[in-house]
């Protein structure tokens, strides 16, 4: 029986192996390649997406667990014509170097700011996504900047 889920607001059906990780469904079947493969064991965070608004590592999330759920990828984060404040903050702080891990970093940061709109340094230090280029200091700045922007918008 096909698995039915929502990907970036659209209904999708998948009839393949229910054990296939969401990452490879997104990349090979939905052709959404913004979500990246880094380790395959849920450690590095390059594949981070949102499932029902919460950060999940897509490389260890089997398709069977996505049935009936809403998946958001980096491609679905921005509104029409406008960037999400976290994406904008990433541009403002010039975070990316090679850029490969940044989709996962951004999806993780959006999740953090949803949980903790005023994150402390300790909250940010709990993020475990890897960046081989060492962009962490600019990621910290971008998260603080995005937190301000998000609070400004809500005010």
């Amino acid at each position, binding site marked *: 029986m096909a698995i039915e889920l929502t990907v970036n607001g659209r209904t999708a059906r998948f009839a393949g192996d229910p054990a296939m990780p969401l990452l490879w469904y997104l990349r090979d079947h939905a052709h959404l390649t913004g979500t990246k493969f880094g380790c395959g064991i849920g450690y590095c965070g390059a594949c981070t997406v949102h499932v029902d608004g919460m950060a999940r590592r897509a490389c260890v999330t089997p398709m069977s667990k996505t049935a009936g759920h809403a998946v958001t990828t980096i491609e679905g984060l921005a509104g029409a014509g406008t960037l999400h404040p976290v994406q904008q903050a990433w541009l403002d702080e*010039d975070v990316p170097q090679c850029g490969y891990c940044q989709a996962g970093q951004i999806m993780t940061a959006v999740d953090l700011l949803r949980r903790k709109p005023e994150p402390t340094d300790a909250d940010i230090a709990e993020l*475990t996504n890897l960046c081989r280029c060492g962009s962490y200091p600019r990621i910290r700045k971008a998260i603080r900047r995005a937190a301000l922007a998000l609070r400004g918008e809500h005010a």
Partner: protein
Amino acid sequence: MRRREFLRVSLSAAGGLVVSLVWPHRGTAEEAIEPKLPPAVSRPLGAFVRIEPDGHIVIGARGCEIGQGVRTSLPMLIAEELDVAWSAVTVEQLDYGVEESGTPPELVSRYGRQGAGGSTSIRDGFDELRQVGARARWLLIQAAAEEWRTKADLLRTQDAQVVNPDGRTLSYAQLAKRAAMLAPPKGRVPLKDKAAYRIVGQRVRVVDGRDIVTGAAQYGIDSALPGALTAVIARCPYFDGGIAKVDDSESRRIPGVRQVLTIDGPRPGGPIDRNLAAGVAVLADDFWSAQRGRQSLHVTWRPGPGAQDSSSALEQRALAAFDQRGKIARQDGDFEGARRSAARAIEYTYTEPLLAHATMEPPNALIDLRGKRALLIASLQSPGDASGMVSAMTGIARSNIEIRLPRSGGGFGRRLENDFVAEAVLVAQKARAPVKLIWTREDDLQNDFYRPFGIHRLTATLDPSGKVNGWSHRVAATARTYRAAGMEDDPDWAGCVDRDGFPAGCVENYLAEFLPVEFHFPRGWWHSPLPTFSAFPVESFLDEVAIAAGRDPLDLRLALLGTPRELDYRDHGGPKVHTGRIAGVLREAARRIGYGRKPTPGHGIGLASHFTHGGYAAHAIEVAFSGDGALNVVRCVCAADIGEVVNPLGAEAQFMGGTICGLSTALHLQITVKEGRVEQSNFPDYPLLRMAGAPDVEVFLIDSPFPPVGAGEMGIPPVAPALANAIFAATGKRLRRLPLGSQLKG
């Protein structure tokens, strides 16, 4: 010798101006080919500058973007001299550009150097690419002069317009078609004064930022071709081993698996110039099916001649090597004489592990072999080598091999090798289908060209006044020429012994010696290869000598550096090294961290510097230990002199990232071998720093009048010794073996 390049001017399909420079071809594998001016054919695609009648200004990015920022910084150089606003420019990636031209046909390079390695992109491109922009501007001015029937030297340009002294203006868009009909300038044209720069020297954000944060940026692993099968390979885990038996019956039953085939590895003991290992490839409709197919294989491997080798055996061999004399890489004066008559001698030994590159994007390659043509899309650092290798493997002419250069998820020297491309070719040849090969992280950590393991023994002698009058640096490591193709004529210590690095030339009696050690694993280039290998022992030892001599470590370095002057430096980054610039970055780092102030109890500050690929960097690191003995990096300062800076925002990012890479490596990273196999398999046992362990990095770029060099690698080498020196300052404990992390507790 300066390479001669030629301007090629043509008309775009839409009637605009297209400007290219053409170079005689020089891949790394081939000798210089005599330049020959190609016919002035129209080539609307793949040009450095394209100005369309609708006002569209497109600048071509020639380099491999691996995170060092060349898709931004190199086009900035062209835009500056073209005299257009950066915001008006669209940057387009150029394919690898090699073509045949003339009779008899000879290879010409359409864009000059496109590879990424050795922090050379800016150094090589600074003059060339400014000339591209300036010559395009020259053409536009000539076109305006014709239009107005006036003299070109009365005209100036501003924001994509040519301005007449009488107040009239013509836009580049209006002039593009006429300019495309003109004869190109003969040779070089004058460049702007630095004072007139409007783009170079500005803080410019990465050109692909928006694509990256929206997931639209394309990396090698994101490429696709209709009909391509996804391949994964189970490789022999023993280097130089092979396949004894394969049972693929289960694999073939996995839905989506299309083919299972075997490929050969390098000949044991032979050159390592293609793929690294024999293996069984599983080809499927998608990655997951291929991976399931691989997991269902039953393969019996044949261990190779190195099957019993291990890191501990390697270390024993390296230590034993010190009992014999090695090969002299540099000798000044008489070190042995100095040692015999020394008032005092100080000697310590430092050990550095094997390292893997661990690019975030694992190696991958998409290849389509179509008779006499081929298409390769992959994240690369050496597209020229890839082109030569694919041609040699397939017989397809290089000019018929199209190589696209998507962004790379990191490089760090891993992609200077094209073993993964060779694998894709071997698999595609057997499968008779286009193939997209993907490596897993486990494949990556266990099949790398590793930074060699090394043991360094340093000896310094002091005369009765306490002056350092003798210095010996002996290195035991795997030679760079070990089974490397095309390097047979290099001295085997190259890449292992920094013979001309500080304090060479600053100590009267100096000896640098190499002791080759055999090891059954491939070695490669790891992010600032020789400098990272050399800086930890040398800069740790400088501190030890200072302390033994009762001197301040900074004062001792400055005294050794002496009067600012140029010394010969015969390896990459030379031909000269400037002692005043080393002193300059050391002083700046020291000043910024407040070196010499009374330290907070339990804190320690360490300093180190290094000359890397033509650039100068120094780190000053302050550490503290918490009650439970955990290390805390309190401050991390980096001062760098890389000459004129093209993009300070990008350069600062490179030094910030280099520093954090240096900390990751110094604290935690090593590859070990046991019973002929690499022990590490994924990030948990190759633990790069995460957010919690990564300090803020204060980067200070020296305002420098020297010509620009790159920034990609200079930020790494001084980190490990500065950190070890800081740990000593805080605790009195000297750590002489990397990585440091496991030695800190208890």
